């Protein structure tokens, strides 16, 4: 430390700097993403991309509360489900078009967030985690039991989405995956933009102060409950957008798929593996996890193993994998979480950053 101060290194601006290159690449990728549906007709790839966008939105929204404000909610399924159920019920039983419904869904999530926030933010650390799970579970069980409104365990199935017509011109009839692709992309860019704005604003500094030391933040005059609730509100609204998009895209929801504890855990896992408290973390997490779990679910990995010849198709192993591996796609989540926590607790993004920082110093 002392030596570094006595002999100051001359600051030579490297141009183009690494940061600049990375940003340029990011802009190019985003621009390219807008043209993907023009060239890619494979519906499976589009499907995968839509799922990735939805997961980016889920992870990034959680990140605002969990990553930047340090409040590890494991009950985000409540907001995902609030959006999904509101939009679907309005569409199916009141014939409200989903592009209006999502905003009602966001409002519903906001109401849920206010309820949850007023209960859970009195608690800290592990108690907050437990309370967030409990409240989300109450919403799930209530949805399961209020059969008159929610159709209970049978779930809600939409039969038809009305065509979107603006100014007499048909924009889309929702027959293909393309409109969902663009909505997903816009939502994902929106939450990334919001995260960036929050991070670089006074609000973001308040959030991070709360994350680093609640008591110190409080003594500096930062209203803990107020700012935690603000973070939760932003987080809940975007999580509900992801929920609504998922619901309308898949066309079917039930309490366990949109309100289950698995959903909450999956949201956290995306961030943990990618790297919490970073803008790119949830994106990396989603890009990595979604294809991996889809590949397992659709038996792609088993087929690959058979094709390469590691496992014979008719052997016991081959048959076993074919039958069982698709059921256990969550296994990979578990393994990745354990490995991440043990070996790179700052996630992939944090790990890469540390490696590049070490290299730069060397």
């Amino acid at each position, binding site marked *: 430390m002392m030596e570094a101060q006595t002999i100051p290194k001359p600051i030579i601006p490297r141009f183009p700097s690494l940061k600049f290159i990375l940003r340029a690449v990011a802009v190019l990728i985003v621009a390219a993403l807008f043209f993907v549906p023009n060239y890619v007709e494979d519906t499976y790839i589009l499907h995968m991309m839509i799922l990735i966008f939805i997961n980016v939105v889920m992870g990034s929204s959680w990140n605002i509360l969990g990553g930047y404000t340090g409040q590890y909610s494991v009950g985000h399924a409540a907001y995902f489900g609030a959006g999904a159920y509101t939009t679907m019920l309005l569409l199916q039983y009141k014939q409200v078009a989903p592009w209006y419904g999502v905003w009602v869904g966001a409002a519903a999530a906001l109401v849920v967030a206010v309820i949850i926030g007023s209960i859970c933010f009195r608690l800290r650390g592990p108690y907050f985690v437990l309370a967030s799970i*409990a409240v989300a579970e109450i919403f799930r069980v209530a949805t399961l039991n209020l059969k008159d409104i929610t159709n209970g365990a049978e779930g809600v199935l939409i039969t038809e989405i009305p065509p979107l017509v603006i100014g007499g011109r048909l924009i889309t009839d929702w027959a293909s995956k393309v409109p969902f692709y663009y909505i997903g992309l816009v939502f994902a860019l929106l939450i990334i933009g919001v995260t960036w704005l929050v991070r670089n604003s006074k609000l973001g500094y308040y959030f991070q102060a709360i994350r680093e030391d609640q008591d110190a933040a409080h003594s500096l005059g930062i209203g803990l409950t107020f700012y935690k609730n603000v973070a939760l509100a932003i987080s809940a609204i975007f999580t509900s957008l992801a929920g609504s998009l998922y619901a309308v895209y898949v066309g079917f929801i039930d309490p366990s798929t949109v309100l289950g504890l698995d959903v909450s855990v999956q949201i956290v896992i995306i961030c943990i593996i990618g790297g919490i408290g970073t803008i790119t973390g949830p994106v990396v997490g989603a890009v990595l996890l979604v294809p991996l779990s889809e590949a397992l679910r659709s038996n792609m990995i088993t087929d690959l193993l058979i094709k390469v010849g590691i496992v014979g198709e008719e052997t016991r192993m081959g048959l076993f994998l074919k039958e*069982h591996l698709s059921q*256990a796609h969550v296994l990979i989540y578990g393994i990745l979480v354990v490995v991440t926590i043990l070996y790179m607790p700052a996630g992939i993004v944090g790990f890469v950053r540390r490696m590049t920082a070490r290299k730069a110093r060397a």
Partner: protein
Amino acid sequence: MEIFFQSLISGILIGGVYALIGIGLTIIFGVMRVINFAHGELLMLGMYATYFLHAVFHIDPFVSIVITIPLMFLYGAILQKIFINRILDALPQNQILLTIGLGLIMSNAVMLAFTSDYKILTTTYSSSSVTLFGISLSTPLMISFAITAVITAALYWFLLKTDTGQAIRATAQDREAARLMGINVKRMSIIAFGLGSALAATAGALISPTYYIFPQVGSAFTLKAFVITVLGGMGSVVGATLGGVLIGVAESTGGVYFGSGWKEVVVFVLFLLVLLFKPAGLFGKSRT
């Protein structure tokens, strides 16, 4: 009134099993300050072990716990040594996530091996019951309650009277002071985790004649275990025992008066109320 007593008694009977789950979690928390989110999965493993011992070797589920208990003690000890031990100083959030990950691995590995089909363990007495003063008592629940009582008594004796038990309690009270007194804190942590998982597995074995057995059965019990331990005060064994019985009663009476679909809500609302107004637990001393 008869309905009330009926639900009260069956609540107490199932509450005994809940107490075992809660005690296991509370011992782990007490000694290591780690909240074990894989607790329900340990219970699930206990259920599967019991199921296969019954299906393959035709061992009665209530007898097979003599095999399940040491097996799951060993399993818990190994888990502690390989995984939990390495995150004792990590952020609580990371500890929680690690145990969630371990739970996911366990439930999905079981799913991989045995598919997610529901399994049912049927014994000759599975659906038999005894009627006493107009209250019908399920035979398997009564046997399991008796076994629970014996195990709990043995556990209290172990914790209060043996050297190891006292060392565990000392570690739970103050890890640093215990270390200074020459207690092998690392070993106590391994024993505590082994004990916790053995207790969870025992609970799983005891309910296996009356429950569906499937890989995801654990998460519901993990949540229940938290409710029980928070209710009794985190780290308090007596609290967890009483908390278990209380939750059993709350569930069964709640089920009777609000409809069985809502009994979980009753439990969770109770949980939130305790968290908010008496965070040290109903029976715990407030710790500052």
